[in-house]
């Protein structure tokens, strides 16, 4: 029999209870994350249609993907272009809207709701609506453009315009980012603006030297979330274009889905998923590293 002091007994009881508290997540971690992650990597080394038993092919899937899969390169290109254009554009629009809303204008709550609502609606229903708006023949966008004497745009039916159409649609959802910026802007202490005014700073220089540095962590957050979000686009391209025309809207996750659940190439799809993970990880680390030169953390001053 061990001789325990009451304190260590209490500690042990607390530790056991602590593990019990987090056990739902621990079980999930084991069976829904760690297990599947290992399983997924193993599958990626095989050729497997889920019906017959898997065949080991080593790094064959990865080699095929990188060396000669035109559609993989196309899907990566589509997704990267989408991310590179829609994320910065969305960032500028949502920041601009947030700054306008931060001016304490009347009706701020109403405006905020109007801009935010598109970001929370079911993507599938939103896609249906935009499919109709984008109708190339007499969809309302073309009719309205016609009023401005602009020739009709072929939107989703042309390889040139299909991806820009998705970018345009993504701008409709800038309200999500806007809410985050608005919170960031409201946490900037007003004394900073006051002392900048005493130093004779104009609107632009207040924005450049007070607002931007103070909300730079929020910008970084939105930037990373935006890039990750771009790499997850699925429902809209699945419903609106199925990746077409001529693969011009073949988003990465759509291509992954097609491999897994349409062509039943599970090994190949798992390899694609791992490459997706590496790409996202690399981009995130790159942004974090680059952010050291432009993101300002208040706590650094206090050191």
């Amino acid at each position, binding site marked *: 029999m061990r001789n325990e002091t009451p304190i260590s007994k209490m500690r042990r009881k607390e*530790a056991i*209870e*602590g*593990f*019990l*508290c*987090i056990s*739902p*997540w*621990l079980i999930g*971690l084991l*069976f*829904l*994350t760690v*297990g*599947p*992650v290992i*399983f*997924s990597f193993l*599958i990626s080394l095989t050729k497997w249609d889920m019906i017959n038993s898997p065949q080991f092919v080593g790094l064959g899937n990865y080699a095929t993907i990188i060396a000669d899969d035109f559609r993989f390169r196309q899907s990566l290109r589509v997704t990267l272009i989408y991310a590179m254009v829609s994320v910065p554009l969305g960032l500028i629009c949502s920041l601009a809207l947030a700054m*306008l809303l931060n*001016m304490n*204008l009347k009706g701020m709550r109403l*405006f*905020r709701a*109007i*801009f*935010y609502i*598109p970001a*929370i*609606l*079911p*993507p*599938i*229903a939103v896609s*249906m*609506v935009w499919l*109709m*708006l984008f*109708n190339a023949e*007499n969809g*309302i966008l073309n*009719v309205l453009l*016609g009023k401005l004497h602009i020739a009709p745009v072929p939107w989703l039916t042309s390889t040139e315009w299909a991806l820009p159409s998705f970018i345009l649609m993504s701008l*409709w959802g800038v309200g999500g980012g806007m809410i*985050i910026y608005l*919170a*960031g802007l409201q*946490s900037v202490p007003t004394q900073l603006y006051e002392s900048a005014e005493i130093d004779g700073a104009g609107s632009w220089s207040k924005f450049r030297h007070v607002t931007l540095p103070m909300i730079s962590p*929020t910008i970084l*957050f*939105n930037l990373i979330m935006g890039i990750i979000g771009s790499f997850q686009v699925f429902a809209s391209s699945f*419903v609106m274009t199925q990746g077409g025309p001529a693969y011009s809207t073949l988003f990465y996750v759509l291509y992954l889905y097609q491999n897994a659940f349409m062509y039943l190439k*599970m090994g190949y799809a*798992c390899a694609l*998923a*791992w490459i*997706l993970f590496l790409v*996202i*990880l690399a981009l995130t680390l790159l942004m974090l590293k680059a952010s050291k030169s432009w993101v300002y953390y208040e706590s650094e001053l206090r050191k």
Partner: protein
Amino acid sequence: MSKQTLTQSASRSVWRTIGYVILIVGSVISLIPFLWMLSCSFKDPAYIFSNPVQWIPKPWLWSNYAKAFERMPFALYTWNTMEITILSLIGQLISCSLVAFGFARMRFPGRDVLFIVLLSTMMLPAQVTMIPEFKIFAALGWYDTYLPLIVPSFMGAPFFIFLLRQYLMTIPREMDEAARIDGASTWQVYRHILLPQMKPALATVSIFAFMGSWNDFLGPLIFLDSPAKRTLALGLYAFQGQYAVDWNYLMAASTVVMLPLLIIFIIGQKYFIQGVVVSGVKG
């Protein structure tokens, strides 16, 4: 000095006016897709792609909704979606609050490392685990049931756990320490002291969990097969596949699918915004 303040206030009111103009134009752009959806949902199909644009439907066809309801079993799909949404919401609330409590209030070896593990799992794209999960759930005989869409919720979601844990860290420990001294058990502290105080954060979690389940498309698409088990999102997709050209019915259906979220947003706007603030600024 006074001259300067005068020009300053003048320039301020100019900026305000410009601000209003941009906000109003932006709102109109933001609202056009909704208004057009609503307008088309009451229209005769002949006027959906007409030039000039007919904004106010004429004739006004309520029957579009009746027809859409005939073609798509809305009541059944709504019921299915509610079943999944509510059960996974309950799962998230129980598991995330308990796990967050464990991380915020209990001391056990490896806690901080595990919390970092929790945060880093947020980085893992769902696509990596999607195929093994499919295989596992299929092997359990869960294919074409709601279990794959519900059971994982009972194991918590890292983002919600993080949100609740951050909230718990802001609640002073005096109350639960006092209760401990009075002999309260861990369970009692969680259930009767901290859970009631977590209500605002739980409201935020509820709203996001509701939204996640209600809007989910990929999950039901992968795991469900029989038409009678479809969710609203899946039903809408199938509806489009069958009646792609009937835009008026499709818009009526889309309106109905969006409606519950709009209502929830209007009721819970505060909690929506709170959740975003916590995740964005403190995260």
